[in-house]
C-alpha cells in the first residue's frame, strides 16, 4: 500500500499559483484539485536552501540535509588545477549523505523515484529509479533496477527524447524571445511532464510503493522564460494575439498539471500527498556582470581574445573564461551566484596569500555591496554570505567563498561584457527563496502553517512512510501538522543517524591534485565546445 506521494514541482510559487487557486486569475480557477488539497490540508511557504538552486535544493529534499552537509552546490563542479580550471558536472556520487530513498530501502520500504536531479548514476534502492536531467542517450544505464528501462519503454506513448533533458533547448533559457518563438519553446516543453506523469502513474498503479516520489520540472522552465506572461503583477490581459497565445499555453500547462496531481491522488487515495517546490520564483530586471565588476576591482583578468570564432564562443559561454595566471577571485558560473577566492599555493601562484585571506574577503564583501545600478543608484547586491554562514557542515570546503544575493533575486552573468550593471527590457524569471509546501491526507490538519524549511520535507516524508526520523536530519515534523488523535497513534520518533556514504567529491579532488603537476594550460577549442554544450540552464545571461 502506498503511504506517501511526494510530488515535486520545480520552482512552484504561490505568487503564480495563488490566482489559479482562488480564481482571481483572468481565467478563473485553473487548478481546482490543488485548491481543494490546500483547503482540506496543511500548507505554507517552504524556505529553500541558502542559495535557491535546483541541484542543491532537491538534494536537500532527498537527504534532509543542507548543502554544507550533502555537498551539492550547483549543476557544475570545477576543479582548480592552479594553472587551469576544469569544469564538469556534479552527479549522484558527489552527494555526501544518504538519501531518503536509501534510508527507506534499507528499512524494508519500497520506493519509486522519478526525475529527481543528481540521481545519476542511480543508487541501488528497493524499488525503481529514473533520474532527471539526463539525456535520452544515457537513460537506460542510469535507471534502476536493470530491466526497468525496457519496462517503461513498453508504456504506450513512451518517447525517451520527449522525456529527457534537452541540453540545447534548456540552454536557451535566459535568451530574450519574441512571443511566437516563446510559444514554440514552451510548447516543446509540455510533453516532458506528460511523459513523466505517465510513467509515474504506471509505476504507482503497478508497484504500489510505500514512497512514491515524482518531480515535474515544467513549472521551472516555463516560469524562467515566460515569467512576464505569468506574474499576476505583470500580466494585465492586454497583450496582442501572440502574447495572448503564450498566456493561454502557459495557463493550459498549469491546468494540465492540476489534472496530473488529481490522477496521482486518485491512484492512491489512501496515501498522504505532499507537494513541495525546491524554490519559488520572481522576476529579475537587472543583469549583473559580476566578473566584469571583479575585473574592475583588479581581481581577475579575462582570457585573451584573439578574434577567432573559438574565442568568441568562449566569451559567450556560461563558464568563467579567465586568465588563471592572473585571477584571484571569480564567479565560475551564473547559476552559482558564488565568488571563489583562490588561495596562493605552488600550483596557484596567482592566489591570495592565506595570511591575507580574511582581510581580502572582508574588503571584497564591502566592494560587492557597494555596487550600484547606474540608472537608479540602488544597491544591486543586497547581501553577501560567507561559506561559513551559508553552508556550514562537513562539505563546506566545496562551497564558494562568498554567495551573492541580488536585490531582485536574479542570477549573475559571467560573460565578458560591459557595463557591469544593465536593465533588461522585460523581466526574466528567476529563483526566489520561498517555495511551496502542501500536504493532505489521513491525519493531516486543515491549516495554514508557519514557514517551513526545505529540509523539514524529508523529516515529514520519513515519518509519513512510517519510519523514525534519522537523528541527523536537519528538519522536523511541524507540531501542528497532524490532528492530535492521529498524531497520538502515529507519534514522531527519532531514530539512528543515516549511514555514511562513499563521499564522492573525494575521488575528484584527489584526481585533480594528482593531475595538477602534469597538465598543460594551452588554449583548447574542444574544451570550449564542451563548455558550450554544458550550458545547462542559462540562468540570466544577457
Amino acid at each position, binding site marked *: 500500500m502506498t503511504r506517501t506521494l511526494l510530488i515535486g514541482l520545480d520552482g512552484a510559487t504561490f505568487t503564480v499559483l495563488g490566482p489559479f487557486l482562488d480564481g482571481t486569475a483572468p481565467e478563473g480557477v485553473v487548478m481546482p484539485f490543488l485548491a481543494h488539497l490546500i483547503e482540506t490540508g496543511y500548507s505554507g511557504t517552504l524556505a529553500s536552501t541558502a542559495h535557491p538552486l535546483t541541484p542543491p535544493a532537491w538534494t536537500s529534499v532527498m537527504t534532509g540535509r543542507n548543502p554544507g552537509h550533502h555537498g551539492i552546490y550547483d549543476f557544475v563542479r570545477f576543479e582548480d588545477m592552479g594553472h587551469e580550471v576544469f569544469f564538469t558536472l556534479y*552527479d549522484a556520487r558527489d552527494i555526501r549523505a544518504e538519501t531518503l530513498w536509501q534510508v527507506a530501502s534499507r528499512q524494508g520500504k519500497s520506493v519509486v523515484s522519478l526525475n529527481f536531479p543528481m540521481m545519476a548514476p542511480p543508487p541501488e534502492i528497493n524499488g525503481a529509479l529514473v533520474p532527471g536531467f539526463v539525456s535520452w542517450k544515457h537513460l537506460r544505464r542510469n535507471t534502476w533496477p536493470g530491466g526497468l528501462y525496457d519496462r517503461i519503454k513498453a508504456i504506450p506513448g513512451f518517447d525517451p527524447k520527449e522525456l529527457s533533458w534537452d541540453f540545447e533547448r534548456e540552454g536557451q533559457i535566459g535568451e530574450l524571445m519574441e512571443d511566437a518563438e516563446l510559444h514554440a519553446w514552451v510548447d516543446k516543453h509540455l510533453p516532458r511532464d506528460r511523459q513523466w506523469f505517465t510513467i509515474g502513474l504506471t509505476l504507482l498503479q503497478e508497484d504500489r510503493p510505500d514512497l512514491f516520489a515524482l518531480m515535474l520540472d515544467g513549472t521551472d522552465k516555463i516560469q524562467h522564460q515566460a515569467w512576464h506572461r505569468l506574474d499576476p503583477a505583470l500580466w494585465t490581459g492586454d497583450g496582442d494575439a501572440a502574447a495572448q497565445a503564450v498566456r493561454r499555453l502557459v495557463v493550459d500547462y498549469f491546468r494540465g498539471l492540476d489534472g496530473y496531481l488529481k490522477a496521482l491522488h486518485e491512484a492512491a487515495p489512501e496515501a498522504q500527498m505532499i507537494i513541495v517546490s525546491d524554490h519559488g520564483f520572481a522576476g529579475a530586471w537587472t543583469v549583473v556582470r559580476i566578473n566584469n565588476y571583479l575585473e574592475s576591482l583588479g581581481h581577475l583578468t579575462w582570457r585573451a581574445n584573439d578574434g577567432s570564432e573559438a574565442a568568441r564562443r568562449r566569451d559567450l559561454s556560461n563558464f568563467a573564461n579567465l586568465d588563471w595566471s592572473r585571477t584571484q577571485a571569480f564567479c565560475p558560473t551564473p547559476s552559482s551566484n558564488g565568488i571563489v577566492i583562490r588561495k596562493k599555493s605552488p600550483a596557484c601562484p596567482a592566489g591570495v596569500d592565506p595570511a591575507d585571506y580574511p582581510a581580502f574577503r572582508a574588503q571584497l564583501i564591502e566592494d560587492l555591496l557597494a555596487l550600484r545600478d547606474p540608472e537608479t543608484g540602488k544597491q544591486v547586491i543586497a547581501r553577501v554570505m560567507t561559506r561559513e554562514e551559508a553552508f556550514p557542515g562537513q562539505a563546506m570546503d566545496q562551497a564558494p567563498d562568498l554567495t551573492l544575493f541580488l536585490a531582485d533575486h536574479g542570477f549573475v552573468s559571467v560573460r565578458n561584457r560591459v557595463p557591469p550593471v544593465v536593465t533588461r527590457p522585460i523581466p526574466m524569471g528567476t529563483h526566489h527563496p520561498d517555495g511551496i509546501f502542501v500536504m493532505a491526507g489521513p491525519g493531516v490538519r486543515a491549516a495554514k502553517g508557519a514557514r517551513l524549511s526545505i529540509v523539514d520535507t524529508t523529516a515529514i516524508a520519513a515519518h509519513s512512510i512510517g519510519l523514525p526520523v534519522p537523528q541527523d536530519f536537519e528538519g522536523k515534523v511541524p507540531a501542528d501538522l497532524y490532528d492530535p488523535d492521529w498524531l497520538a497513534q502515529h507519534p514522531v520518533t527519532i531514530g539512528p543517524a543515516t549511514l555514511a556514504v562513499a563521499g564522492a567529491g573525494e575521488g575528484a579532488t584527489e584526481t585533480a591534485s594528482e593531475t595538477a603537476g602534469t597538465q598543460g594550460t594551452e588554449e583548447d577549442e574542444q574544451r570550449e565546445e564542451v563548455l*558550450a554544450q*554544458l550550458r545547462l540552464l542559462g540562468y540570466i545571461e544577457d
Partner: protein
Amino acid sequence: MLQTVDIGARLRLTLAEFVEDWGLDIEITPETSLVGDLEFDSIDVIQFVVAMENAFQSRKIGFQDLLMQEGRYVDDLTVAQIEAFLRDRLA
C-alpha cells in the same frame, strides 16, 4: 589488479551498453572512434567517463590524462587508445 584481457572485455561491454539505444548500426572494433564513428558529443564524453569509472569501480583513473594531451583536448579517441590507457593505469 585487473588482467589485461578483462580490461579490454569490460571496456567493450561498457561501450556496447553505452550506445545500445543510439540507433547506430556499427560493430565496435579496436579501430572504432568515439566521435567519428559513435557520434559522441561532449556530454557523452562526460557520461562515458562516469560509465568507465563505474565499470572499473574507481574515480581515480585520471581520465583527464587521456582526454588532454600536451595541454589540448584530443579530437577523438579509438577503442584501442582507451584500452591502452586503461591497461597502463589498471593492469
